[in-house]
């Protein structure tokens, strides 16, 4: 947002600000890599469908939002996509320019689609006119400035804090001689003379560029995509500010900065004016997909329908009524797709084992302060603001000791980094690095101790304890039939030397491992005060039920159990559970190793310790479905680690409050994950994190490729591609919910933004009845039974 936007402005200025606002909303936020979570890269385009978004992003970024036609043609040839899939996808397409019939569509699948070209910026036009690579120079200059401005402590000498991005950049750019050396004489003066607030700078540049309100939105969007990850980082700052009920002007600053460049280049190369006028005319045209883009999206939809067809046969219907026997063990896992194989394997160990799925923060929106740390971690889905606080209750002496240790290490680090002392460091400590090299190359010495159990700070009152516990148990559909031992298993990944480490952790825990949330909930549910208050909320927990937290390491498939408050009575139960978990882990490792290039079940643990490993595991690659239903619906099929499984029993959900929660929170988070993988796989240049081989960690927040330049966000190529083929089949998520259709429709009616995801095809919604797909959601018409393409 532009903080300096005047309250009373002439209409054209207002329209320009509105266009800028819209362009900024079109940019997805990128979370810094210390705690990164998946973000829907099409967050700004959920109000339109894939074809429309494809047309928009083709214009502003020159990317395609679907796979190569050859991929679809191959799927048609192998019969993976059938003629009926094509026909159904064609019929469902609302665009007028679609192929007349299935044969025409198939023919198109065999033609190469044209590569879209982004509309040029003035920098592009100036490069063509002068032969000087202005876009690259801008990336380089802005990249160097932005890396310093957003630096969280990587460089020892960062710019003075406290300035807005625009003010800081003006200060920088009036001194930076690089543009002048590259030939843009007078740029420092140009910057010094430009208005000192972003809004006025934008208006002045817009006037110089002849930007009209009609052309401005995509023209601004074009410039913002040019800034790549820096714009997305600024959008994240805005996201965080808005979550706290505030605003942030950094993204507006970046737009203004980029416009100042355009203004200067137009003045430098006035000859591009006629070409620029044509570009503006193109920007002023409404965004509409052409026939090729429409055909691409129909083919993509056909591929999704093919998957959905298979899904229906896997589910195959089930009796969702629960049996009367008390289970031997219950284990709640995160809905993360990596839990599905593990749950399947664990259930295989004994018929008395039941598993359920729930978002890995276990319903506790906590801001957690780790031991000996001033930094807090928001261990909750990024859609929510934290409402509870927790910390690790270390004895003060121990806390101080740890802080001294980290501070000494930091002092040595600064000694290593600082100008003159770096020479002394190398000559005195350099030879020690031979040992470090040996240790790291052989993957030795990595054991970490376990912290004491976290606790709520301040402690919860008796009433809040019971109310929170009851709320979570209801949301988990875990209100009756408890086993003697109930495991609450979060997940995290052990890996080393990977800038994207947090991307492998639990998204529902804000890119952190799930141990803290699981241990907090286990502690809460075992608390006698909680137990005493639960009956008042209609939940009767057996006195002999023990909740035990655990952490599933998704690289090694080992589960650590935290026997924080376990008594003697449960020793045998815990021993048996550990045994089952070990055996399940072995089974999962076999299954997972088959998917990872060069891996064997035995080598997975070594991957976690290997500092050179760039494919430690596949993360959520492959994710394609979300099922909210009792486990019985999915228990008999193999979903191959591609499905988010959320336990949900609508019969126990009287006012459908849990259904509303599922559709508005976990489903949205899952859609972000699925679409991030989708975007990183189909448009890696715009939404992918680049090549891990040349990643250069920058500013403590992200990576650039090679020497510097634009921050790269999204998933690295190696996270979606195994070297030979995509490891993630880009499919938009299919959401299957076992609940009365009217109840689902009512929830959607109340939540416009969630409904838009379904209406515009970013997600596909199916209603289940007794484990069979019975209806599909369509924009406008709502539930449709006839349109189901059921396998014959």
């Amino acid at each position, binding site marked *: 947002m532009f903080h300096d936007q005047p309250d009373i402005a002439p209409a054209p200025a207002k329209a320009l600000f509105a266009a800028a606002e819209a362009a900024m909303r079109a940019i997805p936020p990128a979370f810094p890599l210390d705690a990164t979570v998946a973000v829907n890269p099409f967050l700004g385009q959920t109000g339109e469908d894939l074809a429309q978004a494809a047309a928009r992003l083709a214009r502003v970024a020159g990317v395609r939002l679907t796979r190569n036609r050859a991929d679809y043609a191959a799927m048609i040839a192998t019969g993976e996509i059938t003629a009926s899939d094509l026909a159904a996808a064609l019929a469902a397409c609302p665009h007028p320019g679609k192929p007349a019939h299935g044969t025409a569509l198939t023919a198109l699948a065999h033609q190469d689609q044209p590569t879209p070209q982004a509309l040029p910026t003035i920098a592009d036009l100036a490069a063509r006119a002068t032969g000087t690579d202005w876009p690259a120079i801008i990336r380089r200059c802005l990249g160097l400035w932005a890396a*310093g401005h957003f630096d969280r402590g990587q460089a020892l000498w960062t710019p003075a804090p406290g300035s807005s991005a625009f003010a800081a950049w003006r200060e920088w750019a009036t001194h930076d001689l690089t543009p002048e050396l590259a030939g843009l004489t007078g740029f420092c003066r140009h910057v010094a003379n430009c208005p000192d607030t972003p809004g006025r700078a934008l208006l002045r540049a817009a006037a110089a560029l002849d930007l009209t309100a009609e052309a401005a939105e995509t023209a601004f969007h074009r410039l913002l995509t040019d800034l790549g990850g820096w714009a997305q980082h600024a959008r994240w700052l805005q996201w965080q500010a808005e979550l706290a009920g505030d605003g942030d002007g950094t993204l507006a600053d970046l737009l203004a900065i980029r416009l100042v460049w355009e203004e200067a280049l137009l003045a430098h190369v006035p000859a591009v004016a006629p070409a620029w006028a044509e570009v503006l005319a193109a920007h002023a045209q409404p965004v509409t997909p052409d026939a090729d883009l429409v055909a691409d999206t129909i083919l993509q939809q056909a591929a999704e329908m093919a998957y959905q067809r298979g899904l229906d046969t896997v589910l195959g219907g089930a009796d969702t009524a629960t049996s009367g026997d008390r289970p031997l063990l219950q284990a709640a896992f995160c809905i993360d797709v990596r839990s599905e194989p593990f749950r399947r394997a664990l259930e295989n160990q004994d018929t008395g084992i039941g598993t359920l799925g729930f978002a890995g923060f276990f319903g506790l929106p906590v801001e957690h302060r780790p031991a000996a740390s001033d930094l807090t971690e928001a261990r909750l889905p990024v859609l929510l603001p934290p409402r509870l606080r927790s910390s690790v209750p270390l004895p003060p002496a121990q806390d101080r000791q740890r802080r001294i240790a980290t501070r000494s*290490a930091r002092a040595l680090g600064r*000694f290593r980094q600082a100008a003159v*002392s770096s020479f002394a460091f190398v*000559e*005195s400590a350099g030879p020690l690095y031979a040992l470090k090299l040996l240790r790291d190359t052989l993957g030795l010495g990595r054991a970490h101790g376990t912290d004491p159990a976290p606790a709520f700070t301040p402690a919860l009152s008796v009433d809040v304890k019971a109310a929170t516990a009851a709320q979570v148990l209801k949301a988990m559909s875990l209100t009756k039939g408890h086993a003697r031992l109930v495991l609450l298993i979060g997940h995290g990944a052990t890996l080393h*030397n990977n800038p994207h480490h947090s991307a492998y952790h639990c998204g529902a825990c804000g890119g952190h491992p799930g141990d803290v949330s699981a241990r907090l909930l286990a502690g809460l549910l075992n608390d006698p005060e909680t137990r005493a208050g639960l009956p008042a909320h209609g939940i009767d927990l057996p006195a002999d039920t023990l909740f035990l937290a655990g952490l599933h390491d998704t690289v090694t498939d080992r589960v650590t159990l935290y026997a924080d408050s376990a008594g003697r009575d449960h020793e045998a139960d815990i021993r048996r559970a550990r045994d089952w978990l070990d055996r399940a882990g072995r089974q999962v490792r076999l299954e997972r190793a088959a998917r990872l*290039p060069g891996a064997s079940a035995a080598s997975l643990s070594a991957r976690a310790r290997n500092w050179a490993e760039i494919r430690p595991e596949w993360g959520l690659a492959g994710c394609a479905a979300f099922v909210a239903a009792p486990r019985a619906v999915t228990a008999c099929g193999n979903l191959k680690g591609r499905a988010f499984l959320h336990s949900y029993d609508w019969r126990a959900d009287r006012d459908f409050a849990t259904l509303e929660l599922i559709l508005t929170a976990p489903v949205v988070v899952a859609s972000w994950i699925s679409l991030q993988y989708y975007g990183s796989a189909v448009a890696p240049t715009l939404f992918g994190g680049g090549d891990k081989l040349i990643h250069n*960690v920058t500013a403590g927040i992200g990576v650039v490729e090679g020497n510097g330049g634009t921050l790269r966000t999204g998933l690295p190529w190696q996270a979606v591609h195994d070297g*030979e083929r995509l490891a993630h089949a880009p499919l938009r998520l299919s959401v299957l919910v076992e609940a009365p259709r009217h109840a689902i429709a009512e929830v959607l009616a109340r939540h416009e933004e969630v409904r838009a995801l379904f209406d515009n095809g970013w997600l596909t919604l199916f209603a289940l009845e007794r484990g069979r797909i019975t209806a599909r959601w369509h924009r406008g018409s709502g539930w449709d039974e006839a349109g189901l393409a059921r396998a014959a």
Partner: protein
Amino acid sequence: MPLSSLAPAVLLAAAAIALLRPGRRPQLIPLIAEGTALAALALCLAGAARFAFLGVGQGGGHDGSLVRLDVVTALVAPTVAFIGWVVVRYSRTYMDGTTREGWFHALMLMVLGLVLLQVQAGSLALLVPALAAIGLVLRQLLLFFPDRAPARRAATKFTLVWGAGDVALIMATGLLWLAYGTMDIATIEAAARLAPLPPAAEGAAGLLVLAALLKTAAFPLHGWLTEVMEAPTPVSALLHAGIINSGGLLLIRLAWLVQASPGGMAALVMLGGFTALFGALVMLTQSAVKTALAWSTVAQMGFMLLQCGLGLWPVAMLHLLAHSLYKAHAFLSSGGAIRAVQATRRPGPVATPGVGAVIRAFGLALALYSLAAVGFTLLAGPKSPQALALGLILVSGVAYLVAQGLADAAPRALTQRTLVASTAVTLSYFGLQALAVHAAGGTLPAPPVAGALEWALIGLTVTSFCGVAVAQALFPHWAHHPAAAGLRVHIANGFYLNAALDRLIGGFRTVRS
């Protein structure tokens, strides 16, 4: 022939095998590559062991004309081979599934073999072509992503500077041939040791210094080194830990010749010292981990050249080895930078030492230095003024560590820990230097007797380094002052030397492809 001289041949043979499968997932090639690198390490260790047990006392211990085994080889070759093994092993995992995986392994083995050849070369007839070949192979590695314009730009700069260094070397070789009628390094060294340099040899020494400056990325042509992050991480590790050493090694190999040229020595002190301070300052402002590491290499190589210029040859060799190990680890583990930054932020703000604390820190460091210097003088004999000057530079660095512990806000336990660390650093520094001097024996010349020129250079060096050290200790008090903002911009841009070079070679132009 020592066993270590077989290492290059083994590596080059394995490279040839790797070339048979240049593509993705080349079956056994990565395994063969690591096995060969390990074998090369074993051979180099065997060579070093032979030198340690038999070599001393054979008057420098050289073996035949083409390869040579002396203390320098015995130390440098195993270090390079060790880093080579670590890097090749890393690449085995890291490069898995890349399009030109086999080609990558072939090039890495090739460049490693050539570096080991260059390290052991006993004759310029072998050394100079080996260096030129390293340039050719490294260029291919820098162009591993040939579609990236910055990669092509970096490769162009590298080839220009490295090639210029090769030309200087060829001319130097020619002049040495004129002067001494030989290309054998030991013969040239012996001649330079005994008699004043003839004019041709004087010119050769100057050209050698020039070649070393070019090949160690010294100011003002350092730009190529700060841009080579366009190649995969293992290339950076090997380049910064192995290949970049060749310039310094060249000087150390021909130390007697170089030291006989006071002009060359003065150039090394001035350009090396300036590069060291310049690179270290720029490094402070870099927010990208590999870029900061590259600037650090520029600085460290400058410092090593300064040590050569002061005649502290064994110390320069120690610096090369220590820096190689440190920098290889730093590059290979650079993916952990996100966590590292987070870890530094956890314990809260850094305690800033005030002016008083800084003065006390320098006093303490000086006391520590005096004690250590006296102690080591008693143990290992008197020190040259050059060595004492270098020690002063170290002390001003250690003062920074002490100052952090003396900051008012720092708890007592932290003060104690930093003092212990400072003592350990000082002792380790003097201990390692004494070891290096002892190991070098008579192979490398002692520092020249300080005349007026030497004293002036020593004074200049000590004042400038100590000045920067004081500024660095007081850094938080001025770094964010508005008056420093403009300076920071120029420093972050490396004073635009790279941009100027870009302009000269057309690096700003669009590339027609």
